Structures are given as C-alpha cells and as structure tokens.
C-alpha cells in the first residue's frame, strides 16, 4: 500500500490516485525528430536506476497531475523531482 505525499493535499492513500507512468521526455515537435526518436521515447521507459519520476493524478483530492520520485524496489517516495 502506497501512502502518496501529494504536494497539495498531504499524504493520501494510493486508491485516491490514478497512475500515469514514468515521466517521459518527448522528442521536439519541430519536424526535426525521427521515427526512431519517437520509438525510443514511447517504448523505452524502464528506469536506469531503481528511482523513477512518475506522474500521479489525484482524483479524490486536488484533481491535479503531480510528479513524484519513488524507489521501485522499496516503494519509498523521495524528494519531489522535476516540475
């Protein structure tokens, strides 16, 4: 069971959230990116370390997408990462 530290609402039960997966770095939308760039961005999301920055949508709270850093081995949330 995850106790998710929502920056807007405080620690809340995981059942209040929808998981949005790891934060993606999308290729530039200026016509300069290739099919391979998109293939890599869409299909390769496993983290280089056990720490992963993820999106959560707080359905039963602030109704906002939040970004949190979590250790996928221990389920510990660490300092908030990214915007």
């Amino acid at each position, binding site marked *: *069971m*995850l106790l998710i530290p929502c920056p807007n609402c405080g620690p809340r039960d*995981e059942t209040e959230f929808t998981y949005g997966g790891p934060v993606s770095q999308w290729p530039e939308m200026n016509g300069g990116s290739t099919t391979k760039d998109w293939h890599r961005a*869409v*299909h390769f*999301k*496993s983290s280089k370390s056990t720490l992963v920055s993820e999106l959560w949508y707080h359905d039963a709270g602030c109704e906002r997408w939040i970004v949190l850093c979590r250790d*996928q081995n221990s389920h510990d949330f660490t300092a908030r990462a990214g915007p």
Partner: protein
Amino acid sequence: MHYSGLSLLRRAVCGSEDWASILTEPGMARSYDIVVVGGGGHGLATAYYLASKHHVTNVAVFEAGWIGGGNTARNTTIVRSDYLLNASFGLKNHALQLWADLSQELNFNLMYAPRGYIDLAHSDGELEHFTLRANAMRLGGADASILGLPDLQNRVPQLSVGADARYPVCGALVQEAGGVVRHDAVAWGFARKAIEAGVHVFQNCPVTGFDIREGRLRGVQTPRGNITCDQAVISVAGASVDVAKLASIDLPVMPINVQAFVTEPVKPTLDAVVNYNAGLCYISQTTKGEFVLGGATDGYVSTARRGSFARIEDVLARATQMFPFLSRLRLMRHWSGTADIAMDGNAIVGDTPIKGLKINTGWGYAGFKATPAVGHEMAALLATGRMPDLIAPFALDRFEAGALIDDAGIGPYPWLH
C-alpha cells in the same frame, strides 16, 4: 528413474527411502553449446526440448534462485488459449495441445485438468466481442462456445447471476479445453527429464555478465566461473530488464507487481476456471480444495514483490460478487511476483541485436500457460537457426516497425495491461 505404479509400490513397501533426487549437482564444464539463463518453466522447457527434439544436450541452465521458486510457482496455474489475435492464439493454442500429453511425455504427473475456462461477459457489447473471439478461435482450430445466461447458470450453478448485482453477468465465452496444471510440477518435470538427458542445471547460480565481442556472444559469467558458449537465451521473467542490461540491451518492458491468493480448503465446489471481467478476478478450486484467486496488476512499476492492500480488497470484492459463499472463507496464503510486461502487453521472443543471444520476455502474467510452446519453439530456433512461424511475430524489433500485438488495444501502458 522411470516412475510407474510398480516403482511406487516397490518403494511404498521399502519405506520410500531410495527415491533418487530429481535435481543433481553437476560439475560445471568450461564450455557449453547453449546456455539458458533462468531455470523457470520456460527455460527448463527450452532445455528439455533441445535435448528431446534436437539431441542438443551440451546445455547449461543457470537459475539465480531455486527450481520452482520463481514466477513458475507464483501464478494461478490457469491454461487457456482464448485470444483474438492470430499470433497470441497460435502460440498459446500450441501450448494447450502440448499440455494434453505432457504428463505422459515427461513421466511426471502435471495434474493437467481441462475443467473448462469460463470468461464472463457483463454487457451485450462484451458478449458480442467474445463471440468475435470465439469465432476467431474456431477458425484457428480450437473449441469455443458462447453461453447465454440459462446455459451459463447450468454450467456453473454456483455463480451469482442476479440482475441486482453491481455488474450483472449476461453470458460467457467457454473454452472446455482450458483448465489448470500444477505449476511447480511443470518446473520439476521439465528439469528432471532435461537432467536425465544430460543437461546441467545449476541452482543458486545467477548469470552476472555476458562476454560479448564484436557484436557476438562468446560466453557468460557466473559467480562460479566464466563459461564459453555459442548461444544463450535470456528467459528470466521479472528480472528481464536487469539481466538484459548486463548485455547492454534496453527492453521495452516494465516490471509490475501481480498478486495471488489461496483460501482455506473446502469440499469440491467449483469444477471450472471462472474469470470475472468487470475489473478482473480469476478463480479456480485446486484438487486439494483451496480456491486460488488472482486479479489485475497492482497498477504501477514495482520490483518490490510486495502487494498493495488495495488490490487484495479489489480482487476479493469481485470474487464474492461471483460466488457470494466465498465471503465465509479465510485467506490462507497470499503472495506476489514481478511480472515483466511489454509495451503492447505481449511477449518478446526471438533474436536480440547481439548475435547468438536470444531473448524470451514480456510474458507479464500470461507466461505460465505458454510454457511448453515457448520451450518447444525456442529450442527449434536455437538448434536450427531458423525462426519458427509461431514466434516470428513476437520479435523484439516489432516495436520499432510498429507491428505491435496488442490484444486488448490498450497502448504502450504496461501497468494497464
């Protein structure tokens, strides 16, 4: 040693003392033709079919844990082939055909029980989709039927089908050839026959590195020494991402936790495998009388092998909607395992960018049912060098080519598959 009624009787009289151990401790050679990384059902089946069908016995299987201790023994033992897409159906239906005779072939009782797999539909639209799937299965040569409510109630009298249910049931897809197989017996059975044929199986011995030069596999590293080999196959389920990284291969796969549950045993009550689709809950009763249940994944990336309580509540709520009498039973055991789920929710079987190194991953929580077919086809690929038709669609490069096999049409979100 051949198991038979006579061998059982002889040892029963002699106090059951001279049963030979299934698993031996072989001496490690410096070189093997083929190394199988991962001694689960898939890896051991690969080794067995290499020996039995292709007479390749200079094979080593390296298992980081123990035989029958990984995902092979963490699933809910269900076998079926009710898949819509040709590639998914073909491989799993081939497995279903192999399961039927495998106990005889392995001389090991896998307790294959084709008691019927019943997939419940909760709306007319869902039943229509099931009809499409049943027709596809029939075209592929499998049996499948669609039951309306009265017939379904006859087939599964214990099922609650009241119209006042939260998600009323309106019919079902039934595959009578589906059922259950004793999961750890599969690992032991394949291991025993492979070892008898001369395959070396090493337990508590992980592969810690791959020796790759000029894009070609030369050998593998283990804590007990380095081995040279011509070919290897990575078949390590939940550990796939980490093991593939040792060979500098990125996999379009994410590790996600899946849980399963067993109740206390009661008298025979349910003779079919039933799957509830409003949410997800699959249930069967073991020969011993316990109910085995499973559900959806925990829904987020995890390698913790520690289940979320929310999922337990969710699965049990759906189970009691199907069979209200289950509310009187207590859970006896509960466990979880790391499923390797690919970006289209389907398996990755075949070549890697490294010559001589094959991969078998992405089975998520659908791997057990496919065990013999994957072993059979992977052995053919390793022994002949020709890509078998049944596994060709599962190529690693299908993601770049856009040839995804997304049975559920979910998209690149493994936690939703």
